[in-house]
């Protein structure tokens, strides 16, 4: 189980990660982009938990804990970002 | 094998960072590009030395660890500089070294005053509130 399936689960989660990033590129609003960062954070935590088990390294779980602890400060910094020049148009 | 893959990734990141550094004029973009190049160097430092006991060599690990912290502090300083620059000159761009128009402009600048192609922003606008 650990040997055979976990790496494939990791690959699957990573593919999800990449697919979700398309939203950060397309936008169209700043909120969408921040939302992708949020999704990226949650999925990365899942990825780290899987890796901790796969590689047999429990320290990686502390990394995941740190990520969830501090991931919010980016959203806090983003909140209320004023309107800026090119906001809203598709890129 | 996986080391080789990550060396290629580091090379790509370094190249992308170099491109961004050369092509962009906004200071923050240049900073982002510089940080990318830095990450590529960190990656190389960890991946290239032979692992010891299943772990990357501890000496470069220590170097990179301090490097990460130093990088964020210098970035913070550079960002403070950028905000000041923006307040002073009204935009946060510095001319790209690659643009022939800028070369011409510089030459003209040194001869007879400000460069008209910069929309007068460099010289006209003073310190904004």
């Amino acid at each position: 189980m650990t040997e055979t399936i976990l790496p494939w689960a990791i690959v699957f989660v990573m593919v999800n990660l990449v697919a979700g990033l398309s939203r950060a590129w397309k936008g169209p609003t700043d909120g969408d982009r921040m939302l992708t960062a949020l999704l990226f954070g949650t999925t990365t935590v899942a990825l780290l938990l899987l890796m901790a088990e796969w590689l047999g390294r429990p320290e990686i779980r502390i990394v995941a804990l740190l990520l969830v602890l501090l991931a919010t400060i980016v959203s806090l910094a983003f909140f209320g970002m004023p309107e800026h020049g090119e906001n809203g148009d598709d890129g | 094998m996986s080391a080789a893959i990550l060396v290629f990734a580091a090379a790509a990141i370094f190249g992308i960072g170099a491109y961004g550094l050369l092509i962009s004029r906004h200071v923050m973009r240049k900073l982002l590009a510089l940080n990318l190049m830095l990450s590529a160097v960190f990656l190389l430092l960890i991946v290239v030395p032979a692992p010891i006991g299943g772990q990357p060599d501890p000496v470069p690990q220590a170097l990179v660890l301090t490097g990460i912290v130093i990088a964020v502090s210098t970035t913070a300083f550079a960002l403070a500089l950028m905000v000041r620059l923006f307040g002073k000159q009204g935009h946060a761009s510095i001319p790209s070294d690659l643009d022939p128009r800028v070369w011409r402009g510089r030459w003209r600048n040194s001869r007879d005053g400000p460069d008209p192609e910069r929309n007068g922003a460099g010289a006209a606008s003073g310190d904004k509130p």
Partner: protein
Amino acid sequence: MADPAALVDPAGLVDPAGLVDLVALALLLAGCFFIFAGTVGMVRLPDVFCRLHAMTKADNLGLLLLSLSMALLAGTPRTALLLLLVWLLALLASTVSAHLIARHARTRLPPASGTRESEPES
């Protein structure tokens, strides 16, 4: 994606350790499914509010299932507690982030008109 040979191990169904593995596998697959659902919502839904709604819930459920699976595999109460803490914090983080992003987006485009505008069928 799963290796079928690992599953039909006949001893696995009798042996409690094998049973735990099986439950862990089921949870893992379910977790992957919900993460996938979150990604699909992220890519396909029409506007920020819908995406927020879909993504935060599906992803956190996926994370819960994955954490449960990993806790079963690791098998120690300490790890299980740590994973539970990680999940609770992730829940808190995405609650606050989603709230902030939604609030931010609402000052830009009022939800009613914004949703109607960007809905594909109208």
